[in-house]
């Protein structure tokens, strides 16, 4: 047990380190020095800090929900993306963007709500498509997720085709996934959802352990499997939706972060949940710093970096197994 607390301290140190590096990375601070400390302060507190916090929250959310989905579906590649949850959320947001403005607090909230409806729709379809028969078939669930992803991608393209030019640009930019230009309102909103959602998920850690083993053992140990599954789906969907509505879909973290975390901390959700959260945050902090510096002065949407890095990482893991 003591070795785990040491690892947690190390993970927390890494987290802080990359948080600082993320804020320091990129253009602006050096140039601002000549213009005075005030501008540097503005850049740090009004642009870089909110952005780093967004990276922490988005990375943490995708990682946590990935870990939860892996228990619910008993499949190591279940994630908000493989199961179409993020696809559904994206569709909700796309529809919303093409019809409404999202700059106000109410706008942020409503976008998230639209994302939530889309996410819930896809989770419901996946759930019923694969749990209809006697047992919960995880393979058909993953396949349904793939189909749903295609379906929602099609619908998103359809909306893009029908809507006006400005919305098309906004939608395209948004579907690439990025964490720049977040309003303070939006940041407050996703922070509130993230903190309460994480606490709630941690509340279910014992259930998640048993559910990851099997239904029979869960019931015989006293887990209310149907109620618990529904609760976990709703909590994860709300968390994913709130983040996706702000950042767009940022793939792969939901699979990779829990995978890395479990290789150091084991599969026990008492440790896996906090470890995945921190790992997911660290990954997104790193990817964001890269996206800001790699093609300087051009800044890439971070979704591009996570998708490419994630796919590479994933194929390495697959070939090793």
């Amino acid at each position, binding site marked *: 047990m003591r070795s785990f607390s040491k690892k947690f301290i190390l993970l927390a140190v890494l987290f802080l380190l990359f948080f600082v590096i993320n804020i320091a990375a990129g253009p602006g601070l050096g140039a601002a020095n000549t213009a005075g400390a005030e501008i540097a302060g503005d850049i740090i507190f009004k642009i870089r800090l909110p952005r780093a916090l967004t990276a922490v929250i988005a990375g943490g959310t995708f990682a946590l929900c990935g870990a939860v989905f892996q228990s619910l579906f008993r499949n190591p590649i279940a994630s908000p993306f493989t199961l179409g949850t993020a696809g559904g959320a994206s569709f909700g947001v796309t529809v919303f963007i093409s019809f409404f403005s999202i700059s106000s607090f109410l706008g942020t909230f409503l976008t998230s709500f639209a994302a939530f409806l889309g996410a819930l729709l896809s989770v419901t379809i996946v759930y019923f498509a694969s749990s209809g028969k006697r047992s919960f078939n995880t393979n058909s669930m993953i396949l349904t997720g793939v189909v749903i992803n295609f379906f929602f991608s099609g619908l998103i393209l359809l909306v893009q085709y029908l809507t006006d030019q400005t919305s098309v640009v906004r939608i395209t930019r948004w579907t690439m996934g990025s964490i720049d230009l977040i309003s303070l309102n939006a940041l407050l909103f996703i922070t509130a959802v993230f903190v309460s959602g994480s606490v709630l998920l941690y*509340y279910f850690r014992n259930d998640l*352990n048993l559910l990851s083993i099997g239904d029979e*053992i869960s*019931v*015989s*140990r*006293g887990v*209310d499997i149907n109620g618990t599954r529904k609760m976990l789906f709703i909590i994860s969907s709300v968390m994913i939706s709130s983040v996706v509505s702000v950042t767009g879909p940022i793939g792969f973290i939901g699979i990779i972060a829990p995978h890395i975390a479990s290789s150091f901390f*084991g*599969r026990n959700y008492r440790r896996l949940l906090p470890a995945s959260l921190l790992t997911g945050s660290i990954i997104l902090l790193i990817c964001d710093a890269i996206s800001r510096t790699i093609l300087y002065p051009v800044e890439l949407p971070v979704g591009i970096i996570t998708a490419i890095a994630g796919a590479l990482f994933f194929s390495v893991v697959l070939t090793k197994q």
Partner: protein
Amino acid sequence: MIKVKDLNIRLGGLHIIRNVSFDVIKGEYLSLIGPNGAGKSTILKSLCKIVPFISGSVHVAGQDISVCAGKQLASKITYTSQLPSNDFTVKELIMFSRYPYLSAFSSITEEDRLKVEESMKITFTSEFSSRKLNELSSGERQRVAVASALAQDTDIILFDEPVTHLDPYYDSQISELIFNVKKTRNITVVNATHNLNNALKYSDRIMALKNGKIEFIKRSGEVSSEDVSGLYGVGFVSMENPVDKKRVMIKL
């Protein structure tokens, strides 16, 4: 301890259990025998709400299980079959059996730890407590299954083929283990098994199922070779074991 009345279970359109009624008294060892597909597992699973029933009633320790919350029921009765493969260590897995006693934001108590240690000691699993389930042999895994059932600290344990796939050594080791624990802790045991001679040797009564109906419930000393032959559709002969003077049955 267990009262089952007019139980009917339908799964996937099939009427699997038909009007089954039986009682199990406190501290009793009841064996469930019968051909494959007779409904032994289904009945055990219905007793702790893993499988729903369409009509009838089940009372466990005086409580109607259909109105009993999951955790409450799990502190009275537990079901144990082959453990599915997983990445947890033996100790972690056994600790999960303390679920009914854990509250959401509290951590593991000294009592939980003691129960887990004790269950591992009785089942001789302490020596590999930090190995992962996936790395164990079937015999070791089966002992872990028994250990985790014991750690749940229930008055009733339902075993679903605890010695299937085990060699004679582990078979008798685990069968003896279950019998001894049942005696020392005065636990009520229901054991679904294909091992007829274990059933004859250890249980107080034997309940035979066929096609979802009870064929007979008898004290184990009163079960005849004709009963068993009729049940399985293959001839059996009854003899006395010269060593422990218990009855054994041999398939012809």
